[in-house]
């Protein structure tokens, strides 16, 4: 079953996407040269941007008819704009969960999500001392801990070497498989798509008008 599909999708009259079908529970890589609209497509999927024409379906329903907040919580985008609050790792979980009006996970659970993202830090570690790559992985861990139905990762490994990048994705996918979570990845790294992709969607077919 397609969890997300698109029809005649056009963004701001200059990116025309081919019709896209994303199967539930799969690991899907979006590829295409820079400027082809990969990140934009993810923002269209979670309705933080609107297409100028065309339709996106989530679980068979036109996303225009879905409450956008609920959609974003289920189709969770881990964007490239990494933001962490000042304070410790634990404080960050606390802040993000209070924004979502949810109880924060317990320490064991937090450690579990950190380990998936290849982080082995005490929870009291201040985020200000983390390197760019570490901050990005913590950011991913926080998003992942919300256990969405679809997780969209926009260049999740841009600050990592190949070895770390592979471990990170392997563990995320392992978690996703136990939860029937769909994983959509935008990455320039061919090594990753070759190793992990169950489906590769080339949006290069999209025409720039």
């Amino acid at each position, binding site marked *: 079953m397609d969890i997300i599909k698109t029809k005649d999708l056009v963004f701001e009259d200059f990116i025309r996407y081919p019709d896209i079908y994303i199967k539930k529970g799969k690991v899907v890589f979006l590829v295409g040269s820079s400027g082809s609209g990969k990140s934009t497509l993810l923002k269209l999927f979670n309705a933080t941007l609107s297409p100028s024409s065309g339709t996106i379906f989530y679980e068979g329903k036109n996303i225009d008819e879905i409450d956008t907040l609920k959609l974003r919580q289920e189709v969770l985008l*881990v964007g490239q704009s990494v933001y962490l609050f000042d304070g410790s790792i634990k404080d960050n979980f606390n802040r993000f969960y209070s924004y979502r009006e949810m109880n924060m996970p317990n320490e064991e659970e937090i450690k579990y999500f950190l380990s998936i993202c290849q982080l082995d830090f005490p929870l009291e570690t201040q985020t200000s001392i983390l390197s760019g790559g570490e901050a990005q992985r913590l950011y991913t861990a926080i998003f992942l801990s919300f256990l969405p139905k679809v997780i969209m990762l926009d260049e999740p490994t841009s600050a990592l070497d190949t070895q770390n990048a592979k471990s990170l994705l392997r563990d995320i996918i392992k978690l996703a498989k136990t939860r029937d979570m769909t994983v959509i990845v935008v990455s320039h790294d061919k090594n990753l798509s070759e190793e992990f992709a169950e489906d590769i969607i080339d949006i290069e077919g999209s025409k720039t008008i």
Partner: protein
Amino acid sequence: MTNSGIVKLSIFQFSLIYLLLIVVLAIMKKANVNQTKLLIVASLRMTVQLTLAGFVLTYIFENPSPLFTSIYLIAMTLFAIHRALSKNKWLNKSFKWATALSLAGSGLLILAFFVIVVVRVDFFNPQYTIPLSGMIMGNAMTGVNLGLKSFKDNFSSQRKRVETLLNLGVKPKKILLPFSQNALETALLPTLNNMVGMGIISLPGMMTGQILSGTPPTTAILYQIAIMIAIATVVCLATFSTLNLGIRTLYNDKNQIEFSYEN
């Protein structure tokens, strides 16, 4: 000289004060501050503008009429709105309306309370309404300006935070609220700090003016305290209202936040 009398300045006496500007000019020249032109223009402008204001006010006071007072009030309100909007060009159209309505509404409300409820004179009595409205509107404008600037600076510099929370499915209002709370605090602080130092470091302008013109200091302080509280209230009310109405214009019913104005 009696207590209640005021020394009427003759033109000759008055012009002596301009001699002080020679001191400023001399220091500027010595210290290589190249603002002599501005000093002269500023002094001239001030003289001309205040002279005109003096004539206009004299005319209005001698011919009190609700019409003149109203025109003066409207002109002052429009000027305050114009200043606030021209300093915040990033505002979208609805945000501009929110700013204009908040400034006018809060200013007139506090002014009416001061004149009608506290002083208990006719609202259109120019002697009270005109100078008080100037102080209230002017401070409201400064507060709103400060609030808007602080909001924009924070909001622009924390775009990643906004995007992150949007992606997490947080309500835009909830995302924006901390920015407006912060901005309100920034807008209020100068007025509050001013109140803290008042009477120790300086005698405030309005009180000084009243005392110079013969009002007993005890009456003058009552007016000064009253106007300070009125100013703190109008700054708070106008800024709160501007930001709270304004942030609603930054997102749409799809919970998308408009970033495009940022430049």
